[in-house]
């Protein structure tokens, strides 16, 4: 039995163990991985960066805790960017297990902006982020398609009050804000079918700029909407989040994870190459022995 035959019969758990060792090694050893920013992520960043102070962005945190590994860093990067630019944010959380997680993220990001920092050479004076002034968290309502359609008429239809129970009209930033016509862009950070609803029931019906932040598994299937102009930008998986962090000069968990991604991908590619070589050799040997 040659080395390739042995590898073909290798217990998959050795592959897992090897992968874990490489991932842990790449995590522990501190080295920098260059991040190449793709145009589809750049467009989202540029759009938000060019917004005037006081503009309103709707950020839909449409994922459950099982997708937070990829999408939470995106939420942190985009929301921090908005608040640094004094852009107001309306949050929704249309995935059933997401509202508590979204609330915690909003509090974390608010806390992180209390201190003075410098991003891309621009000094940011730490400030308090106030509920009702800088943001409004609408929370969750069942049947996301109907909620998205309802918000197109008036945010108050599906959400008469916010997540914390305050009537929307009592919040200063929501005065005069009626529907999608009064906001500048919708950023949907999603780990499921809600993205389809935002495209079909939201963007196509009400024609607002829509940007997507998606899990890696979903990303490839939404590129056709980028080409048709229905979606103005896409951030795909942890890489998309890392690209946004890179552009915003705000390194976080996504950029920190790129070292591990690099190591894991090298290992997986090597295993794929070895597996294919082994398969080809096996097939050739089988043919030589008179097999089909």
């Amino acid at each position, binding site marked *: 039995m040659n080395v390739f035959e042995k590898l073909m019969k290798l217990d998959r758990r050795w592959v*897992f163990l090897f992968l874990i060792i490489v991932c842990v090694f790449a995590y522990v050893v501190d080295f920098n991985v260059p991040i190449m920013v793709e145009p589809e992520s750049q467009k989202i960043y540029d759009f938000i960066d060019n917004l005037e102070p006081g503009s309103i962005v709707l950020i839909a945190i449409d994922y459950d805790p099982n997708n937070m590994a990829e999408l939470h860093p995106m939420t942190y990067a985009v929301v921090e960017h908005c608040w640094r630019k004094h852009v107001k944010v309306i949050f929704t959380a249309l995935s059933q297990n997401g509202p508590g997680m979204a609330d915690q993220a909003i509090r974390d990001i608010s806390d992180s902006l209390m201190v003075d920092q410098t991003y891309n050479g621009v000094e940011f004076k730490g400030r308090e982020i106030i509920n009702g002034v800088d943001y409004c968290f609408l929370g969750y309502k069942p049947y996301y398609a109907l909620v998205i359609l309802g918000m197109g008429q008036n945010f108050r239809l599906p959400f008469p009050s916010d997540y914390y129970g305050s009537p929307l009209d009592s919040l200063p930033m929501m005065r005069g804000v009626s529907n999608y016509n009064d906001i500048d862009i919708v950023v949907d950070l999603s780990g499921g079918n809600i993205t389809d609803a935002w495209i079909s029931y939201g963007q196509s019906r009400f024609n607002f700029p829509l940007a997507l932040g998606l899990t890696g598994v*979903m990303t490839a299937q939404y590129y056709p909407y980028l080409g048709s102009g229905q979606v103005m930008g896409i951030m795909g998986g942890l890489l998309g989040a890392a690209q946004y962090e890179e552009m915003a000069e705000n390194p976080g968990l996504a950029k920190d994870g790129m070292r591990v991604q690099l190591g894991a991908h090298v290992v997986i590619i090597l295993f794929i190459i070895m597996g294919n070589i082994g398969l080809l050799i096996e097939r050739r040997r089988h043919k030589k022995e008179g097999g089909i």
Partner: protein
Amino acid sequence: MDFGTFLWVNFGAFLTFAILSFLYKDNPFYKIAEHLVVGVSAGYFVVILWHNGLSPNLFQKLDDGSWFLLWLDSSEPWYIIPAILGVMMWTRFSKKWAWVSRWPMALYIGIATGVAIPLEMGAKVNRQLYAIMEKGFDWQNFFGHGSFNLLDATSGLSQVIIFVGTISALIYFFFSKAHTGWFGGMAKFGIWILMIGFGASFGYTVMARISLFINRLQYLDKSWYRNAVDTVNENYHVGFPIVFWFLILLIVGYIILEIVNHVKSKESPAAE
């Protein structure tokens, strides 16, 4: 540090190891963690649904009515209609009355279909067709916008590849004509396009799965390990190193036990 944080951070670390242990083989720790995820998700969803759906959209609307008048004296009595439709759904539990549930079901499907078909057709078929037919190919930016970039998804070249690729992939699934000659060639190109598409999805999926592991690594390191070893850390608590070493000993002990069992089974294969 409060006791709650101490408890939940350690419990999170335990559950992380319990879930990852499935990579080796199925075991009771994994089962506990798996059932906990399903149970907690279902419980949380019920509470969220009550507070965000049923309570504000039904019970609060009928709050000012009297139950003995079946809430008909409330200011918004028409909310009884969806409530009745909802109750009718429950007749599915009875064989005799199950037919009643067809009425609300028919209404629900009818409304959903009426809303969905025009919007879905518009967004997923018409707009995609318009994108090519209205504007045509972007010949001016054939090799990328601004600079030469073969990876530009909106360049003219990408549009041509998408157009030809879509037609070819559709031809591959057209079985009313034999896949021979130019038609066969297109079908073959179509299957290549499909494979490239699946490859792109696979690549992204690998990244997604590794991302989950990275997240757990970051949690174990930043929220758990550092609290156990870094005495200067504000979250340090003397309980952390105790739990940390207990869990490490548990894992190491389990590995040793498995090795011993493996060696024993090799020495006496008949026992298996």
